């Protein structure tokens, strides 16, 4: 399992709360973890991708109550610069214990910021729970808009859920009109920056989660750090999360590994391409995990 990072345990899990599951992307793990952590004081605020000015345009927000947190349920397949709020959370928001959710690259940035807190005075020790989400690539809002409006021929206001899975990008609407396009079509809308990323499962998070590897309505959860383990186990005990063993789960970790390998080998190739002398204008990048 070369590309899945270090982890203490891996589970098939979903939220124990019906309200969360009703609008969750998959198992509602991130919302449940933060809700539990907020309720019990493990964190006093969480930086999440909240609703923005346009439908499905995420905007970072700081949730200090479960009600605020619920406004951010579900995945929005566009960039939410959550790190932009990390310092402000400790300043005018007055938080001491912060939870943050992010894509693998954002979690890398969190960890790097903790290691070298340039411009993050008094912030590192206040980040207590960093949740990572599996990420193959991300889309700028304009790209997502075009995928939904043009390729899926759906008005984005009417969309109730978007999903990527089984090689397809799916859009669901309230009226029951669903459309799907093959992922291949979406590739040209990806952010170019995603093509240098060598992390699929947020190796540096306290807990990372995503839908891949478990049946619909469930999430795969990697518990990585001691802090993550303590919080996750307590959330399971308190009934906020239902966790089961990954043994015998289909498609299981093999699929996670397969997709991780796919992403990383593809991006490795791109990195080598950039490093080639014929492309001197493109800066070679180093693998952050070596």
């Amino acid at each position, binding site marked *: 399992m070369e590309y899945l990072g270090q982890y203490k345990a891996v589970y098939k899990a979903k939220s124990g709360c019906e309200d969360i599951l009703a609008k969750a992307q998959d198992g509602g793990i991130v919302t449940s973890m933060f809700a539990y952590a907020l309720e019990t004081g493990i964190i*006093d*605020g969480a930086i999440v991708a909240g609703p923005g000015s346009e439908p499905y345009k995420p905007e970072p927000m700081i949730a*200090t109550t479960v009600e605020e947190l619920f406004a951010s349920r579900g995945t929005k397949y566009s960039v939410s610069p959550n790190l932009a709020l990390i*310092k*402000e959370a*400790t*300043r*005018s*928001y*007055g*938080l*001491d214990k912060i939870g943050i959710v992010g894509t693998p690259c954002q979690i890398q940035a969190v960890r790097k910021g903790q290691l070298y807190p340039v411009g993050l*005075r*008094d912030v590192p020790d206040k980040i207590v729970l960093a949740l990572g989400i599996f990420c193959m690539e991300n889309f700028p809002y304009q790209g997502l808009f075009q995928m939904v409006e043009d390729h899926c021929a759906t008005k984005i206001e009417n969309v109730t859920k978007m999903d990527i899975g089984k090689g397809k990008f799916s859009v669901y609407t309230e009226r029951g009109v669903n459309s799907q396009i093959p992922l291949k079509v979406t590739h040209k809308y990806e952010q170019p920056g995603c093509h240098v990323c060598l992390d699929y499962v947020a190796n540096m998070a306290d807990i990372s989660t995503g839908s891949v590897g478990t049946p619909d309505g469930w999430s795969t959860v990697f518990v990585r750090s001691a802090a993550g383990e303590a919080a996750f186990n307590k959330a399971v005990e308190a009934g906020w999360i239902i966790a089961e063993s990954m043994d015998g789960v289909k498609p299981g970790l093999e699929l996670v590994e397969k997709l991780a390998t796919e992403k990383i080998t593809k991006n490795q190739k791109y990195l080598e391409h950039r490093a080639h002398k014929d492309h001197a204008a493109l800066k070679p990048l180093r693998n952050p995990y070596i």
Partner: protein
Amino acid sequence: MSKVVEISPTTRHEGHSKLVLKVNDEGIIERGDWLSITPVRGVEKLAIGKTYEQVPKIASRVCGICPIAHTLAATEAMEASMGVEIPDDAYLLRVILQCANRLHSHALHDILALPDLYLPGTDIKVNPFSPEEPVRSVAKRIQTLRMIGQTIGEIVGGEAVHPSNPRVGGMYKNITPRAKAKIFDLAKQGLKLAREQMEFMIALEENYMKRDWAEMCGREVAIPKDLGYHNQGYMAAAPMYGSSSLDLNPEWDPARWLEVRPWDWYMGEEEITLEDPAYPIGGTTKAGTKAWPQMQACTGVPLYDGQPVEVGPRARLVKYQNYDRKGAMGLNIARAMEYMDCIYKMIEAVDAIDTSAPVCADVIPQGDGEIGWAANEAPRGCDVHLAKVRNGKVEWFSMLVPTTWNFPTCSRALTGAPWELAEVIVRAYDPCVSCATHMIVLDENNKLVAQKLLE
């Protein structure tokens, strides 16, 4: 026959300065010159042509101890020039920031001043880094007070050092109710500590005044009863916050201010004729060395009504609370007495804040080149910034900072004290020298000075 002794550099304060002292045969100072030898920052020239948003940020970089005072003074000087009125809640946030800055700065000064003082009833000087009680708990208390000041500064100002939140027109962000609660909690914690610290410092300072001698250079130096007395006036713009040219009754008057060049003020070239290798740390300057205060001083000499004046805690207390104690210890006691004001004012301001109110003015005029000034009562005294803004660009900018005012005043206060205790007097002013250093205005005479310096 008077001798000349030089203490260079002076220690346990911010920045670089030195003392050139003419003393009589008994070692009593006849004339003292205390001067800044910090290299010129050049902020006032850097500011020209920059936008009014940039200049307060640049101005705050002049120093890291009271950047809050410089940010606020420069921001308000811009506002005064452009005629911007800020919302009430923005003002309250600035007041909290001001109190937080003063709290941490005064606590820091205690660490610097304590090694001069004696534990009452003993002949032991205080070492604030000693692991022994009672000093240990005092050091911890000072650090906690500083933590409280800096954390509140961080919440309200965005950063404790070089605050990012103040802007021309108010503040960028209001605080959340949770942050408000946190400030309350911190201030309440600080209230008890500040009272204890104030009482402790005053006890030690009173005790110092009662003593006959202090140990210096391995000998007992007699402490005169009028240590650090001077007959100069006092200048303050407010008990806590400040004043600006937008006020109905401005508390500072630029017409009464005049700046003299160091060439005309300080001593001419002198040869050092007295040295003491036992003086901490490493002895005074060797005999035979030359000192040239009028050439080496980097500050201008500001006068108010034609005289040097004192600014700082005592000036505020004298002007607004009828305080009457003189001398170095009188100034230290005044500083200790300000602890409680910082916390009470902070609690009052945070209580009054509406966390959902706007904190930035709707309209910000871009300025027509009119002169505006703002005086901010920094921890060390009245910090006046003056600016002219036209069409959003700064045409002229000047900083009249507290220690610049105190340099000539303190120099006069040195007269009559034993030279070994000159630094005790200097430290009572809590000097912060780096911002005091100024560009010298070039004119016929000054060109000569600049040339000589280059040689």
